[in-house]
Protein backbone atom coordinates (compact mmCIF):
# COMPACT_ATOMS: atom_id res chain seq x y z
CA UNK A 1 0.00 0.00 0.00
CA UNK A 2 1.27 3.43 -0.95
CA UNK A 3 -0.84 6.29 0.38
CA UNK A 4 -0.35 9.85 1.58
CA UNK A 5 -1.15 9.07 5.19
CA UNK A 6 0.52 9.20 8.60
CA UNK A 7 -1.25 6.36 10.38
CA UNK A 8 -4.28 4.37 9.15
CA UNK A 9 -6.30 5.02 12.32
CA UNK A 10 -5.81 8.81 12.06
CA UNK A 11 -6.82 9.26 8.40
CA UNK A 12 -10.39 10.43 8.98
CA UNK A 13 -9.61 12.95 11.72
CA UNK A 14 -6.55 14.37 9.94
CA UNK A 15 -8.51 14.74 6.70
CA UNK A 16 -11.31 16.53 8.56
CA UNK A 17 -8.75 18.91 10.04
CA UNK A 18 -7.63 19.58 6.48
CA UNK A 19 -11.20 20.32 5.40
CA UNK A 20 -11.41 22.84 8.21
CA UNK A 21 -8.11 24.47 7.25
CA UNK A 22 -9.16 24.73 3.60
CA UNK A 23 -12.70 25.96 4.25
CA UNK A 24 -12.81 28.40 7.18
CA UNK A 25 -16.51 29.04 6.55
CA UNK A 26 -17.21 25.50 7.78
CA UNK A 27 -17.01 24.38 11.41
CA UNK A 28 -15.25 21.11 12.13
CA UNK A 29 -16.00 19.08 15.27
CA UNK A 30 -13.04 16.72 15.34
CA UNK A 31 -14.20 14.80 18.41
CA UNK A 32 -17.55 13.91 16.87
CA UNK A 33 -16.17 13.85 13.32
CA UNK A 34 -18.63 16.42 11.99
CA UNK A 35 -18.50 19.04 9.26
CA UNK A 36 -21.01 21.80 10.11
CA UNK A 37 -22.11 24.90 8.25
CA UNK A 38 -20.51 27.92 9.89
CA UNK A 39 -23.84 29.69 10.48
CA UNK A 40 -25.76 26.64 11.81
CA UNK A 41 -28.26 26.40 13.35
CA UNK A 42 -30.34 28.79 11.28
CA UNK A 43 -33.61 29.84 12.85
CA UNK A 44 -36.68 28.33 11.18
CA UNK A 45 -34.69 26.62 8.46
CA UNK A 46 -35.05 22.85 8.14
CA UNK A 47 -31.65 21.34 8.93
CA UNK A 48 -30.29 18.76 6.50
CA UNK A 49 -27.75 16.24 7.63
CA UNK A 50 -26.25 13.23 6.02
CA UNK A 51 -23.33 11.01 6.76
CA UNK A 52 -21.83 7.67 6.18
CA UNK A 53 -18.54 5.93 6.06
CA UNK A 54 -15.57 8.03 4.96
CA UNK A 55 -13.81 7.32 1.69
CA UNK A 56 -16.50 8.75 -0.64
CA UNK A 57 -15.21 12.33 -0.72
CA UNK A 58 -16.41 14.88 -1.61
CA UNK A 59 -19.59 13.16 -0.29
CA UNK A 60 -20.75 14.13 2.35
CA UNK A 61 -18.56 16.77 4.01
CA UNK A 62 -17.85 18.42 0.67
CA UNK A 63 -21.54 19.15 0.25
CA UNK A 64 -21.98 21.12 3.47
CA UNK A 65 -22.80 24.76 2.94
CA UNK A 66 -25.39 27.17 1.64
CA UNK A 67 -28.06 25.42 -0.43
CA UNK A 68 -27.08 21.90 0.49
CA UNK A 69 -26.28 20.10 3.77
CA UNK A 70 -26.10 21.78 7.19
CA UNK A 71 -23.87 19.06 8.58
CA UNK A 72 -22.20 15.78 7.63
CA UNK A 73 -21.18 12.97 9.97
CA UNK A 74 -18.02 11.14 8.96
CA UNK A 75 -17.73 7.52 10.03
CA UNK A 76 -14.55 5.52 9.88
CA UNK A 77 -13.58 4.50 6.33
CA UNK A 78 -16.55 2.62 4.81
CA UNK A 79 -18.18 2.32 8.26
CA UNK A 80 -21.34 4.23 9.08
CA UNK A 81 -21.18 6.87 11.80
CA UNK A 82 -22.44 6.02 15.30
CA UNK A 83 -25.72 7.31 16.82
CA UNK A 84 -23.89 9.72 19.19
CA UNK A 85 -22.29 11.55 16.26
CA UNK A 86 -25.54 11.74 14.32
CA UNK A 87 -27.37 13.05 17.41
CA UNK A 88 -24.72 15.76 17.92
CA UNK A 89 -25.06 16.79 14.26
CA UNK A 90 -28.85 16.84 14.55
CA UNK A 91 -28.68 19.11 17.61
CA UNK A 92 -26.10 21.36 15.94
CA UNK A 93 -28.35 22.12 12.95
CA UNK A 94 -31.83 22.18 14.52
CA UNK A 95 -33.16 25.71 14.20
CA UNK A 96 -36.63 24.76 15.35
CA UNK A 97 -38.01 23.67 11.97
CA UNK A 98 -36.88 20.06 12.28
CA UNK A 99 -34.09 18.05 10.74
CA UNK A 100 -33.99 15.82 7.68
CA UNK A 101 -31.69 12.80 7.78
CA UNK A 102 -30.51 11.72 4.34
CA UNK A 103 -29.46 8.09 4.69
CA UNK A 104 -27.90 5.84 2.08
CA UNK A 105 -29.52 2.41 2.12
CA UNK A 106 -26.97 0.21 3.85
CA UNK A 107 -27.87 -1.95 6.84
CA UNK A 108 -25.47 -0.17 9.19
CA UNK A 109 -26.31 3.36 8.07
CA UNK A 110 -30.04 2.76 8.42
CA UNK A 111 -29.65 1.27 11.93
CA UNK A 112 -27.38 4.01 13.26
CA UNK A 113 -29.51 6.84 11.85
CA UNK A 114 -32.65 5.17 13.23
CA UNK A 115 -31.11 4.96 16.71
CA UNK A 116 -30.03 8.60 16.45
CA UNK A 117 -33.51 9.69 15.35
CA UNK A 118 -34.99 8.01 18.43
CA UNK A 119 -32.47 9.81 20.66
CA UNK A 120 -33.29 13.13 18.93
CA UNK A 121 -36.99 12.45 19.47
CA UNK A 122 -36.25 12.12 23.20
CA UNK A 123 -34.88 15.68 23.01
CA UNK A 124 -38.01 16.93 21.20
CA UNK A 125 -36.35 17.48 17.82
CA UNK A 126 -38.54 16.58 14.83
CA UNK A 127 -36.63 14.28 12.53
CA UNK A 128 -37.65 12.82 9.20
CA UNK A 129 -35.46 10.32 7.41
CA UNK A 130 -35.19 9.74 3.70
CA UNK A 131 -33.45 6.55 2.60
CA UNK A 132 -31.71 6.76 -0.77
CA UNK A 133 -31.69 3.50 -2.76
CA UNK A 134 -30.95 4.22 -6.40
CA UNK A 135 -28.41 1.55 -7.38
CA UNK A 136 -30.22 -0.62 -9.90
CA UNK A 137 -27.38 -3.17 -10.05
CA UNK A 138 -29.00 -4.68 -6.97
CA UNK A 139 -32.43 -6.21 -7.25
CA UNK A 140 -34.86 -4.78 -4.76
CA UNK A 141 -36.38 -7.88 -3.26
CA UNK A 142 -37.11 -9.45 0.08
CA UNK A 143 -34.00 -11.56 -0.52
CA UNK A 144 -31.53 -8.70 -0.31
CA UNK A 145 -30.92 -5.68 1.89
CA UNK A 146 -32.51 -3.70 -0.97
CA UNK A 147 -30.90 -1.37 -3.45
CA UNK A 148 -27.83 0.56 -2.34
CA UNK A 149 -27.72 4.33 -2.00
CA UNK A 150 -25.16 5.79 -4.40
CA UNK A 151 -25.05 8.67 -6.92
CA UNK A 152 -28.60 9.92 -6.40
CA UNK A 153 -27.52 10.99 -2.91
CA UNK A 154 -25.74 13.96 -4.51
CA UNK A 155 -28.95 14.96 -6.33
CA UNK A 156 -31.08 14.50 -3.19
CA UNK A 157 -28.72 16.65 -1.11
CA UNK A 158 -28.64 19.41 -3.76
CA UNK A 159 -32.35 19.57 -4.49
CA UNK A 160 -33.67 19.06 -0.95
CA UNK A 161 -31.02 21.51 0.26
CA UNK A 162 -32.28 24.15 -2.14
CA UNK A 163 -35.87 23.76 -0.96
CA UNK A 164 -34.79 23.99 2.68
CA UNK A 165 -32.74 27.10 1.90
CA UNK A 166 -35.78 28.89 0.45
CA UNK A 167 -37.87 28.06 3.51
CA UNK A 168 -39.52 24.74 2.66
CA UNK A 169 -41.15 22.92 5.58
CA UNK A 170 -39.80 19.59 6.83
CA UNK A 171 -42.57 17.53 5.21
CA UNK A 172 -42.06 19.24 1.85
CA UNK A 173 -38.27 18.95 1.96
CA UNK A 174 -38.61 15.24 2.76
CA UNK A 175 -41.15 14.82 -0.04
CA UNK A 176 -38.91 16.36 -2.69
CA UNK A 177 -35.97 14.27 -1.44
CA UNK A 178 -38.07 11.10 -1.85
CA UNK A 179 -39.21 12.23 -5.28
CA UNK A 180 -35.62 12.68 -6.46
CA UNK A 181 -34.71 9.24 -5.13
CA UNK A 182 -37.71 7.57 -6.78
CA UNK A 183 -36.92 9.19 -10.12
CA UNK A 184 -33.21 8.30 -10.06
CA UNK A 185 -31.24 5.23 -11.03
CA UNK A 186 -27.50 4.50 -10.90
CA UNK A 187 -25.16 1.81 -12.16
CA UNK A 188 -21.40 1.42 -11.70
CA UNK A 189 -18.51 -0.48 -13.24
CA UNK A 190 -15.04 -0.90 -11.71
CA UNK A 191 -11.68 -1.61 -13.33
CA UNK A 192 -9.75 -2.06 -10.08
CA UNK A 193 -10.53 -2.73 -6.42
CA UNK A 194 -9.79 -0.07 -3.82
CA UNK A 195 -7.50 -0.25 -0.79
CA UNK A 196 -8.75 0.86 2.63
CA UNK A 197 -5.99 2.33 4.82
CA UNK A 198 -6.76 -0.23 7.55
CA UNK A 199 -6.69 -3.29 5.28
CA UNK A 200 -3.63 -2.12 3.36
CA UNK A 201 -4.36 -4.22 0.32
CA UNK A 202 -7.03 -4.23 -2.41
CA UNK A 203 -10.43 -5.69 -1.44
CA UNK A 204 -10.36 -8.13 -4.34
CA UNK A 205 -8.07 -9.21 -7.18
CA UNK A 206 -9.14 -8.20 -10.65
CA UNK A 207 -7.11 -9.50 -13.59
CA UNK A 208 -5.77 -6.97 -16.09
CA UNK A 209 -8.37 -7.88 -18.74
CA UNK A 210 -11.48 -8.03 -16.52
CA UNK A 211 -13.96 -5.60 -14.97
CA UNK A 212 -16.49 -5.80 -12.12
CA UNK A 213 -19.96 -4.91 -13.30
CA UNK A 214 -22.56 -3.57 -10.88
CA UNK A 215 -20.27 -2.50 -8.04
CA UNK A 216 -21.19 -0.34 -5.07
CA UNK A 217 -19.04 2.28 -3.39
CA UNK A 218 -17.36 0.21 -0.68
CA UNK A 219 -14.84 -1.85 -2.58
CA UNK A 220 -17.08 -4.90 -2.45
CA UNK A 221 -17.18 -7.11 -5.53
CA UNK A 222 -19.95 -6.38 -8.04
CA UNK A 223 -22.79 -8.49 -9.40
CA UNK A 224 -20.65 -10.18 -12.02
CA UNK A 225 -17.21 -10.17 -13.57
CA UNK A 226 -16.71 -9.78 -17.32
CA UNK A 227 -13.97 -9.29 -19.87
CA UNK A 228 -13.15 -5.62 -20.32
CA UNK A 229 -14.95 -3.98 -23.26
CA UNK A 230 -14.72 -0.67 -25.14
CA UNK A 231 -16.26 2.32 -23.32
CA UNK A 232 -19.10 2.38 -25.85
CA UNK A 233 -20.21 -1.14 -24.86
CA UNK A 234 -19.83 -0.40 -21.13
CA UNK A 235 -21.95 2.71 -21.57
CA UNK A 236 -24.60 0.65 -23.41
CA UNK A 237 -24.79 -1.88 -20.57
CA UNK A 238 -24.99 0.94 -18.05
CA UNK A 239 -27.64 3.03 -19.77
CA UNK A 240 -29.79 0.04 -20.78
CA UNK A 241 -29.79 -1.27 -17.18
CA UNK A 242 -30.77 2.16 -15.87
CA UNK A 243 -33.57 2.63 -18.42
CA UNK A 244 -34.88 -0.89 -17.85
CA UNK A 245 -35.22 -0.18 -14.12
CA UNK A 246 -36.51 3.39 -14.33
CA UNK A 247 -37.93 3.89 -17.84
CA UNK A 248 -37.86 7.34 -19.42
CA UNK A 249 -40.10 8.38 -22.30
CA UNK A 250 -39.08 10.27 -25.40
CA UNK A 251 -39.27 13.95 -24.53
CA UNK A 252 -38.41 13.46 -20.85
CA UNK A 253 -35.76 15.69 -19.31
CA UNK A 254 -33.04 14.32 -17.07
CA UNK A 255 -30.19 15.35 -14.80
CA UNK A 256 -27.26 13.05 -15.60
CA UNK A 257 -24.06 12.47 -13.65
CA UNK A 258 -21.02 10.58 -14.92
CA UNK A 259 -19.06 10.08 -11.74
CA UNK A 260 -15.55 8.82 -11.14
CA UNK A 261 -14.99 6.32 -8.33
CA UNK A 262 -11.67 7.84 -7.29
CA UNK A 263 -8.90 6.79 -9.66
CA UNK A 264 -10.38 7.36 -13.11
CA UNK A 265 -9.07 10.39 -14.99
CA UNK A 266 -11.48 13.08 -16.18
CA UNK A 267 -10.49 12.42 -19.79
CA UNK A 268 -12.10 8.97 -19.48
CA UNK A 269 -15.16 10.35 -17.68
CA UNK A 270 -15.74 12.87 -20.50
CA UNK A 271 -15.27 10.10 -23.06
CA UNK A 272 -17.92 8.09 -21.20
CA UNK A 273 -20.21 11.11 -20.95
CA UNK A 274 -20.07 11.41 -24.71
CA UNK A 275 -21.24 7.80 -25.06
CA UNK A 276 -23.94 8.18 -22.43
CA UNK A 277 -25.23 11.39 -24.03
CA UNK A 278 -25.48 9.72 -27.44
CA UNK A 279 -27.41 6.77 -25.99
CA UNK A 280 -29.85 9.01 -24.12
CA UNK A 281 -30.34 11.14 -27.23
CA UNK A 282 -31.22 7.98 -29.16
CA UNK A 283 -33.82 7.23 -26.50
CA UNK A 284 -35.23 10.73 -26.96
CA UNK A 285 -34.18 11.89 -23.50
CA UNK A 286 -33.02 15.48 -23.14
CA UNK A 287 -30.09 15.94 -20.72
CA UNK A 288 -31.20 19.17 -19.08
CA UNK A 289 -28.30 19.38 -16.60
CA UNK A 290 -25.17 17.31 -16.03
CA UNK A 291 -22.24 16.69 -13.74
CA UNK A 292 -19.00 15.08 -14.89
CA UNK A 293 -16.35 14.47 -12.24
CA UNK A 294 -15.65 12.87 -8.89
CA UNK A 295 -18.64 13.41 -6.58
CA UNK A 296 -19.15 10.10 -4.76
CA UNK A 297 -16.05 7.98 -4.76
CA UNK A 298 -14.74 4.71 -3.43
CA UNK A 299 -11.23 5.68 -2.27
CA UNK A 300 -8.79 4.79 -5.06
CA UNK A 301 -11.08 2.58 -7.13
CA UNK A 302 -10.74 2.98 -10.89
CA UNK A 303 -14.30 2.97 -12.13
CA UNK A 304 -17.32 5.05 -12.94
CA UNK A 305 -20.98 5.33 -12.12
CA UNK A 306 -23.81 6.87 -14.10
CA UNK A 307 -26.86 8.37 -12.39
CA UNK A 308 -29.95 9.48 -14.29
CA UNK A 309 -32.73 11.46 -12.59
CA UNK A 310 -35.94 12.27 -14.42
CA UNK A 311 -36.40 16.00 -13.95
CA UNK A 312 -39.40 18.30 -14.15
CA UNK A 313 -39.43 22.11 -13.94
CA UNK A 314 -39.58 22.08 -10.14
CA UNK A 315 -36.51 19.85 -9.80
CA UNK A 316 -34.59 21.86 -12.39
CA UNK A 317 -35.42 25.14 -10.65
CA UNK A 318 -34.13 23.71 -7.34
CA UNK A 319 -31.08 22.26 -9.10
CA UNK A 320 -30.23 25.71 -10.47
CA UNK A 321 -30.67 27.45 -7.09
CA UNK A 322 -27.47 28.91 -5.60
CA UNK A 323 -25.14 26.52 -3.83
CA UNK A 324 -21.85 27.19 -2.05
CA UNK A 325 -20.06 24.09 -0.79
CA UNK A 326 -16.54 22.72 -1.31
CA UNK A 327 -17.87 20.18 -3.82
CA UNK A 328 -20.62 22.08 -5.70
CA UNK A 329 -20.67 25.82 -6.18
CA UNK A 330 -22.76 27.92 -8.55
CA UNK A 331 -25.28 30.73 -8.82
CA UNK A 332 -23.50 33.13 -6.47
Amino acid sequence: MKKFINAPEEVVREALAGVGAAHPDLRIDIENQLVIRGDAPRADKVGLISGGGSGHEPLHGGFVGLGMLDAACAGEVFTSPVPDQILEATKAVDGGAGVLHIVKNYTGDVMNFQMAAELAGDENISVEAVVVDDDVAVEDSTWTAGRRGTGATVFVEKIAGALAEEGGRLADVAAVARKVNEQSASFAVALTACTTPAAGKPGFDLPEDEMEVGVGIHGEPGRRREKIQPAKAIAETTVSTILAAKPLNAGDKAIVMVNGLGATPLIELYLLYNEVAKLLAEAGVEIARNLVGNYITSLDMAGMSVTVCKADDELLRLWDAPVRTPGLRWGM
Partner: protein
Amino acid sequence: MDVALARAWIAAVTAAVTDNADYLTQLDSAIGDADHGVNLRRGFTAVSAALDSYEAATVGDVLVKTGSTLVSKVGGASGPLYGTAFRAMGKALPEATVDATALGKALRAGLEGVQKLGAAVQGDKTIVDAYEPAIAAFDAAVAGGGDLHAAAEAARQAAEDGMHATTPLQARKGRASYLGARSVGHQDPGATSTWLIFKALAEVTA
Protein backbone atom coordinates in the same frame (compact mmCIF):
# COMPACT_ATOMS: atom_id res chain seq x y z
CA MET B 1 -22.14 -15.99 36.85
CA ASP B 2 -21.09 -13.08 39.04
CA VAL B 3 -19.74 -9.62 38.19
CA ALA B 4 -16.14 -10.85 38.08
CA LEU B 5 -17.04 -13.67 35.70
CA ALA B 6 -19.02 -11.28 33.48
CA ARG B 7 -15.96 -9.03 33.33
CA ALA B 8 -13.79 -12.05 32.53
CA TRP B 9 -16.15 -13.03 29.70
CA ILE B 10 -15.97 -9.58 28.10
CA ALA B 11 -12.17 -9.54 28.56
CA ALA B 12 -11.97 -12.92 26.81
CA VAL B 13 -14.17 -11.64 23.95
CA THR B 14 -11.89 -8.61 23.66
CA ALA B 15 -8.82 -10.85 23.45
CA ALA B 16 -10.53 -13.10 20.89
CA VAL B 17 -11.63 -10.32 18.53
CA THR B 18 -8.19 -8.71 18.84
CA ASP B 19 -6.38 -11.97 18.03
CA ASN B 20 -8.79 -12.71 15.19
CA ALA B 21 -9.19 -9.19 13.79
CA ASP B 22 -7.24 -9.96 10.61
CA TYR B 23 -9.12 -13.23 10.13
CA LEU B 24 -12.52 -11.51 10.48
CA THR B 25 -11.49 -8.72 8.14
CA GLN B 26 -10.25 -11.25 5.60
CA LEU B 27 -13.62 -13.07 5.71
CA ASP B 28 -15.35 -9.71 5.31
CA SER B 29 -13.24 -8.70 2.32
CA ALA B 30 -14.56 -11.71 0.39
CA ILE B 31 -18.23 -10.76 0.71
CA GLY B 32 -18.36 -7.40 2.45
CA ASP B 33 -16.27 -4.30 2.89
CA ALA B 34 -13.25 -5.61 4.80
CA ASP B 35 -13.81 -3.88 8.10
CA HIS B 36 -15.46 -6.36 10.50
CA GLY B 37 -12.34 -7.30 12.44
CA VAL B 38 -11.02 -3.75 12.59
CA ASN B 39 -14.36 -2.44 13.81
CA LEU B 40 -14.86 -5.07 16.53
CA ARG B 41 -11.28 -4.66 17.71
CA ARG B 42 -11.80 -0.90 17.98
CA GLY B 43 -15.13 -1.43 19.76
CA PHE B 44 -13.97 -3.97 22.32
CA THR B 45 -10.78 -2.02 23.02
CA ALA B 46 -13.08 0.88 23.94
CA VAL B 47 -15.24 -1.49 26.02
CA SER B 48 -12.19 -2.68 27.90
CA ALA B 49 -11.19 0.90 28.74
CA ALA B 50 -14.77 1.79 29.74
CA LEU B 51 -15.12 -1.23 32.04
CA ASP B 52 -11.76 -0.57 33.74
CA SER B 53 -13.08 2.65 35.22
CA TYR B 54 -16.64 1.46 35.85
CA GLU B 55 -18.13 0.29 39.15
CA ALA B 56 -20.52 -2.53 38.25
CA ALA B 57 -22.92 -3.78 40.93
CA THR B 58 -24.62 -6.42 38.80
CA VAL B 59 -23.85 -8.76 35.93
CA GLY B 60 -26.30 -6.65 33.95
CA ASP B 61 -24.28 -3.49 34.61
CA VAL B 62 -21.23 -5.06 32.95
CA LEU B 63 -23.19 -6.19 29.91
CA VAL B 64 -25.20 -2.97 29.47
CA LYS B 65 -21.97 -0.93 29.66
CA THR B 66 -20.45 -3.26 27.08
CA GLY B 67 -23.42 -2.84 24.76
CA SER B 68 -23.67 0.94 25.13
CA THR B 69 -19.96 1.33 24.40
CA LEU B 70 -20.26 -0.84 21.28
CA VAL B 71 -23.18 1.26 20.01
CA SER B 72 -21.16 4.44 20.60
CA LYS B 73 -17.85 3.29 19.17
CA VAL B 74 -18.27 0.72 16.40
CA GLY B 75 -20.66 2.03 13.74
CA GLY B 76 -21.60 -0.08 10.75
CA ALA B 77 -24.16 -2.82 11.32
CA SER B 78 -22.11 -4.75 13.88
CA GLY B 79 -22.09 -1.84 16.37
CA PRO B 80 -25.87 -1.53 16.70
CA LEU B 81 -26.40 -5.31 16.47
CA TYR B 82 -23.86 -6.48 19.06
CA GLY B 83 -24.48 -3.35 21.13
CA THR B 84 -28.20 -4.10 21.25
CA ALA B 85 -27.53 -7.76 22.02
CA PHE B 86 -25.35 -7.00 25.06
CA ARG B 87 -27.68 -4.23 26.26
CA ALA B 88 -30.70 -6.53 26.05
CA MET B 89 -28.80 -9.31 27.85
CA GLY B 90 -27.71 -6.91 30.55
CA LYS B 91 -31.19 -5.51 31.14
CA ALA B 92 -32.40 -9.08 31.75
CA LEU B 93 -29.76 -9.66 34.47
CA PRO B 94 -30.17 -7.04 37.24
CA GLU B 95 -28.52 -9.24 39.90
CA ALA B 96 -25.04 -9.58 41.36
CA THR B 97 -25.11 -13.33 40.68
CA VAL B 98 -27.17 -15.15 38.07
CA ASP B 99 -27.67 -18.85 37.35
CA ALA B 100 -27.47 -20.66 34.02
CA THR B 101 -31.24 -20.52 33.49
CA ALA B 102 -31.26 -16.74 33.88
CA LEU B 103 -28.27 -16.36 31.59
CA GLY B 104 -30.03 -18.52 28.98
CA LYS B 105 -33.05 -16.21 29.10
CA ALA B 106 -30.78 -13.17 28.80
CA LEU B 107 -28.96 -14.63 25.81
CA ARG B 108 -32.36 -15.11 24.16
CA ALA B 109 -33.32 -11.49 24.93
CA GLY B 110 -30.07 -10.51 23.18
CA LEU B 111 -31.02 -12.50 20.09
CA GLU B 112 -34.48 -10.94 20.08
CA GLY B 113 -32.85 -7.51 20.13
CA VAL B 114 -30.67 -8.43 17.17
CA GLN B 115 -33.62 -9.76 15.21
CA LYS B 116 -35.82 -6.77 16.01
CA LEU B 117 -33.15 -4.46 14.61
CA GLY B 118 -31.87 -6.52 11.72
CA ALA B 119 -34.93 -8.61 10.84
CA ALA B 120 -32.73 -11.57 9.97
CA VAL B 121 -33.80 -15.19 10.42
CA GLN B 122 -31.74 -18.36 10.49
CA GLY B 123 -30.44 -19.12 6.99
CA ASP B 124 -29.89 -15.48 5.93
CA LYS B 125 -26.12 -15.88 6.42
CA THR B 126 -25.76 -13.57 9.43
CA ILE B 127 -24.98 -13.49 13.17
CA VAL B 128 -28.30 -15.27 13.73
CA ASP B 129 -27.02 -18.48 12.09
CA ALA B 130 -24.54 -18.98 14.93
CA TYR B 131 -26.53 -17.28 17.69
CA GLU B 132 -29.83 -19.13 17.39
CA PRO B 133 -28.45 -22.70 17.49
CA ALA B 134 -26.06 -21.67 20.28
CA ILE B 135 -28.83 -20.58 22.64
CA ALA B 136 -30.97 -23.60 21.69
CA ALA B 137 -28.05 -25.83 22.71
CA PHE B 138 -27.45 -23.73 25.84
CA ASP B 139 -31.09 -24.11 26.94
CA ALA B 140 -31.13 -27.83 26.13
CA ALA B 141 -28.01 -28.41 28.23
CA VAL B 142 -29.50 -26.50 31.18
CA ALA B 143 -32.79 -28.40 30.86
CA GLY B 144 -30.78 -31.64 30.91
CA GLY B 145 -29.24 -30.67 34.23
CA GLY B 146 -25.97 -29.29 32.90
CA ASP B 147 -24.13 -26.54 34.77
CA LEU B 148 -23.09 -23.17 33.31
CA HIS B 149 -19.91 -24.52 31.78
CA ALA B 150 -21.67 -27.51 30.21
CA ALA B 151 -24.28 -25.18 28.72
CA ALA B 152 -21.65 -22.72 27.46
CA GLU B 153 -19.66 -25.57 25.95
CA ALA B 154 -22.75 -26.86 24.13
CA ALA B 155 -23.45 -23.34 22.89
CA ARG B 156 -19.86 -22.96 21.66
CA GLN B 157 -20.12 -26.18 19.65
CA ALA B 158 -23.51 -25.25 18.16
CA ALA B 159 -22.26 -21.76 17.26
CA GLU B 160 -19.25 -23.29 15.54
CA ASP B 161 -21.48 -25.67 13.56
CA GLY B 162 -23.82 -22.79 12.68
CA MET B 163 -20.86 -20.68 11.56
CA HIS B 164 -19.62 -23.43 9.23
CA ALA B 165 -23.16 -23.91 7.92
CA THR B 166 -23.16 -20.33 6.60
CA THR B 167 -20.54 -21.14 3.95
CA PRO B 168 -22.88 -22.68 1.33
CA LEU B 169 -25.64 -20.13 1.95
CA GLN B 170 -26.54 -17.19 -0.27
CA ALA B 171 -26.70 -14.01 1.83
CA ARG B 172 -30.11 -12.37 2.15
CA LYS B 173 -29.25 -9.60 4.61
CA GLY B 174 -26.46 -7.08 4.98
CA ARG B 175 -23.83 -6.04 2.50
CA ALA B 176 -23.10 -9.59 1.33
CA SER B 177 -26.63 -9.78 -0.11
CA TYR B 178 -25.57 -7.38 -2.88
CA LEU B 179 -23.39 -10.14 -4.30
CA GLY B 180 -26.30 -12.50 -4.92
CA ALA B 181 -25.08 -15.98 -5.76
CA ARG B 182 -21.46 -14.81 -5.46
CA SER B 183 -21.81 -14.83 -1.67
CA VAL B 184 -22.05 -18.64 -1.76
CA GLY B 185 -18.90 -20.48 -0.67
CA HIS B 186 -17.76 -17.90 1.90
CA GLN B 187 -18.11 -18.17 5.68
CA ASP B 188 -20.08 -15.30 7.19
CA PRO B 189 -17.92 -12.88 9.25
CA GLY B 190 -20.80 -12.01 11.63
CA ALA B 191 -21.53 -15.66 12.41
CA THR B 192 -17.79 -16.07 13.00
CA SER B 193 -17.58 -13.24 15.54
CA THR B 194 -20.67 -14.66 17.28
CA TRP B 195 -18.85 -17.99 17.58
CA LEU B 196 -15.93 -16.12 19.20
CA ILE B 197 -18.31 -14.65 21.79
CA PHE B 198 -19.68 -18.09 22.75
CA LYS B 199 -16.21 -19.60 22.65
CA ALA B 200 -15.08 -16.97 25.16
CA LEU B 201 -18.04 -17.83 27.41
CA ALA B 202 -17.09 -21.53 27.34
CA GLU B 203 -13.47 -20.69 28.16
CA VAL B 204 -14.15 -18.44 31.16
CA THR B 205 -16.69 -20.82 32.69
CA ALA B 206 -14.31 -23.80 32.52
